[in-house]
């Protein structure tokens, strides 16, 4: 025990080790002295087989680097179209990687070759700009029947997609974060899908699948607006008129308003995420707002419900806006399901009403939709519910933190739910 203690102490006191050890190191051997159990110092001397080693190291490294770079680039390089043959024999478009300037794409048959051709065009400033034009060769014996999740993930160039007649399954996340996507067109012969003026629906019109993120750009072109306009700045705070010379009521209704057709029972996951919408009219009869259905609609001011028959428009010159007499504030009474993060970041909204039939509210459904600013609370800082608290708790399957929070001093405060409320006019 005593010996162990002594050993430990000795190990820590360098001076004593040094004093006892230094005489063992002669002055003329300071660069060659070998500590027992360790290798011998070799200072400014190469190993005996240095020339061979040098060659071996150089060759091995060169080969290793070449192989690594070759295979890394090989797996990183994206063919523009990646397909998978599924177990059921169907061909699925797994991933599309825009090779540069593909802005419009038809998904119907397997693409066998992408031919690019560069050309020079003068831009508005009169400068010559090089562009690439692509043409696709397809194999018409292999129809594309499914589109995989995230197939077009984060593509920033595609503006128009055409879905062919053979595509029978499209994943809800297929067009996730396609910021430039303006319209999705579906072949009339397609058995499962259709489009209503560039918005993707199920064939029977009961499910809204994808409202393209940049659909407002398509609408501006359709209604003859050259630029994107905005309401008067801070009109809510200053009390000024929201509309101005450019941003008129007509502009708002045509570009930033969407009326969901009355056939729709469900708005699918991520269906209207990032949309540049100020008002959404939901039909009475809608049952489900799925996960992240209206996620991050930063400018969304109102979600209202209308009653009546509206099948959706195709090329009508006049935009359909429901009769105010048939419109009520907030969500439809028929609604039963509000998915997680459904209204995430709807900070411009100021009223929400949970109707009596709702049985499920996903976690963080209203997250980031309320905020404290210098002059008070903004957004959905109160949530109104039709049911009284007891009935609500008994009936609704509530996800964690579904009401959202806002800053309150150092700690956040949960947005309160006002139970047993009547719907606002």
């Amino acid at each position, binding site marked *: 025990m005593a010996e162990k203690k002594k050993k430990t102490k000795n190990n820590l006191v360098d001076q004593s080790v*040094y004093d006892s050890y*230094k005489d063992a190191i002669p002055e003329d051997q300071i660069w060659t002295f070998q500590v027992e159990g360790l290798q011998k110092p*070799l200072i400014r001397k190469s190993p005996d087989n240095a020339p061979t080693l040098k060659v071996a190291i150089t060759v091995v490294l060169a080969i290793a*680097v070449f192989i690594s770079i070759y295979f890394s680039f090989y797996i990183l390089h994206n063919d523009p179209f990646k397909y998978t043959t599924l177990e059921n024999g169907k061909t699925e478009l797994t991933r599309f990687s825009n*090779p540069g300037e593909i802005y419009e794409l038809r998904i119907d048959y397997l693409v066998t070759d992408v031919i690019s051709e*560069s050309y020079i065009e003068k831009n508005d400033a009169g400068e010559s700009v090089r562009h690439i034009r692509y043409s696709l060769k397809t194999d018409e014996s292999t129809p594309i029947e499914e589109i995989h999740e995230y197939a077009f993930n984060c593509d920033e160039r595609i503006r128009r997609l055409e879905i062919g007649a053979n595509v029978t399954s499209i994943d809800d996340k297929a067009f996730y974060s396609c910021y430039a996507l303006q319209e999705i067109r579906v072949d009339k012969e397609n058995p499962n899908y259709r489009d209503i003026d560039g918005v993707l629906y199920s064939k029977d019109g009961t499910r809204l699948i994808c409202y393209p993120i940049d659909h407002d750009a398509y609408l501006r072109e359709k209604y003859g607006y050259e630029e994107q306009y905005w309401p008067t700045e801070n009109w809510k705070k200053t009390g000024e008129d929201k509309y101005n010379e450019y941003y008129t009521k007509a502009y708002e209704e045509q570009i930033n308003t969407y009326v969901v057709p009355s056939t729709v029972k469900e708005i699918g996951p991520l269906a209207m995420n990032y949309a540049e919408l100020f008002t959404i009219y939901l039909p009475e009869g809608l049952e489900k707002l799925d996960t992240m259905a209206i996620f991050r609609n930063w400018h969304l001011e109102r979600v209202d419900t209308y009653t009546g028959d509206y099948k959706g428009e195709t090329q009508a010159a006049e935009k359909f806006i429901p009769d105010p007499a048939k419109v009520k504030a907030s969500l439809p009474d028929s609604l039963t399901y509000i998915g997680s993060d459904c209204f995430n970041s709807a900070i411009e909204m100021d009223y929400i009403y949970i109707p009596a039939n709702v049985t499920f509210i996903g976690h963080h459904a209203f997250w980031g939709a309320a905020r404290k600013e210098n002059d008070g609370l903004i957004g959905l800082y109160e949530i109104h519910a039709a049911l009284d608290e007891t009935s609500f708790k008994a009936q609704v399957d509530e996800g964690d933190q579904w009401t959202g929070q806002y800053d309150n001093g150092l700690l956040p405060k949960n947005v309160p739910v006002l139970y047993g409320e009547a719907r606002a006019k």
Partner: protein
Amino acid sequence: MADGKMQKVKNFFNDVSEHWSTPAEGRYVPYREYKDIFIAVGSNYAGSKMLEYLYFGAGCFLMMYHYRLPYLTFAIIGLINMPLNYLWSMIGWYINDNLGFLEKKKERALYAFYFSMIVLGLVLILAPVSLLFDQNGAFVTFMNGLEGVNCASAFKIFGTHILWNGWAGSRNIFWRKKLLPKFGRYKYYLYCDFFPKCVMVCLLGWLPLTQADIPDVVERVWKANLAFAVYSIFAFGNSLEACAQNISPNTHERVLVRTYPIKLSHLAHSILALVLPVIIGKLPNKWEDINLFRWVIPIAFCSFAFLTMIFAGRIKERIPQPPLEKKVTIGFWDGMFGVMRNKYKWIQTVVGLLDSLGNGMLAFTTILYLYTFRLSGLLYSLIVALVSFAGTPPDFFTPYFMKRFSYKQIMIFYQFSRALGNGIIVASLLLFRNKVVLCGSICVIVLILMEMCKTVPTSVGHDMDIRINDYQMYLSGERLESFSGVFGWFTGPITSFVGLIIPLLLLEHGFNSNWDVLYVDASRLYIIIIPILIDTLGYLLMSIPYFFWDYDDDKQNKVMAVLRRREEVTSKQEESGVKLNG
């Protein structure tokens, strides 16, 4: 009993007072320097930690929310730059391990080379070099098929790399030679990089590189790459801590310095880690707010950088070494062979290689706190502080653990504890996927336990690194820290390839340039679990090399004795004008 304790306290204060300016016998560091270390390392550490918010990678909030660069693009840029890195590092090691003191002829040749690289880099960036190739040919088509890059931008990225290395290389020779004799090898660069670094940190948030400024992702990528290349030319690493860790030839004193002033100096960062999220929580868009990069980070960084510069000069470097003028000159191949003879560097290399299995994974805690828990403000600060503080108390027992257990035992335990912790986290994510609060709570508890288990091995790891360098100095007459990069040559081709596994798997589950995909429950689950499982495998495998670690205290002390003997003899020879052998 109480009297005994009082006496000990009294003795301690007497000791501090007596050795405030002059160290005790056998010691090298006076207590006043402990105070300086506390402030200088604290500021340097906190400042360098601020820079963790600003880097060219997918985990940086500026990239995530404002630049919106595709995840795979970072790997592609790494590959474009990879071959020439071998050339730069070769030259760099030669310069660094000779501390910038080169023969005149070689120095002039290197300057000429670096300046020509600067010119070449600028040409590649400014001229439309890609037009020299057939625009419809295989090469251009191939390059256009890379994520976030096309042929034209690839040349600009390549040019940026060449420009950066030319610029950094010439600066390296110039400033090393000028500043190293005065400020030592660890902290000299703070004196030339402090001001430009502050300017670049202030600029990054204001540069028009966001998605709104440049809608085209390819253009955004190369311009952001260029901006960050300029930013990273100027260093502000945690160099004072490295300096303080080597502050004494006495290994016991090193442990004391590392355990007390250095560890306590991290308090500044702990306070910052508590306050910063509260400030961020007050910004309208929280972590996504651009003002974080325009005001919060620049102000905090510049303040700490300023403090660092005030106290940096008061920390001394005391590595036992021959006088600078009598330094052993290291040839390139001598340096290479020197480090390759070091068995313990090979052990560390294999560990690093296995660790690369986790390369490319996202910070699990960031996802957990921001996307699962949706934390911000004080709550975020408190949980982050709680988890990171969990590692502090065990650190005070580090000397005990280092005495009681061998380094081998500690490091093997560490790898197993990480694997076990990760296993529990994966299980809770799978079993309680719909119960955000329950699942998150289990994860946080496990993180706390893992943090507690990490502290001692981290200190041991630092000490192992220092000992390996001491051993290298014994073997080769120099620490050859830069030449150690040769191991990166061998592992680089493997790690760069292995490091693609996770990004490619994550891409399959939707993780690209939009981090909002982490709000999609199913995708988030995969994005978290896949990398953790791969990482866990890495931890289990990483325990194996440590079974070969046999460098104990006794060997270390004898090595230090040899080094001190060399210093003593060479100094004596220097005084008597005898030429140095070796």
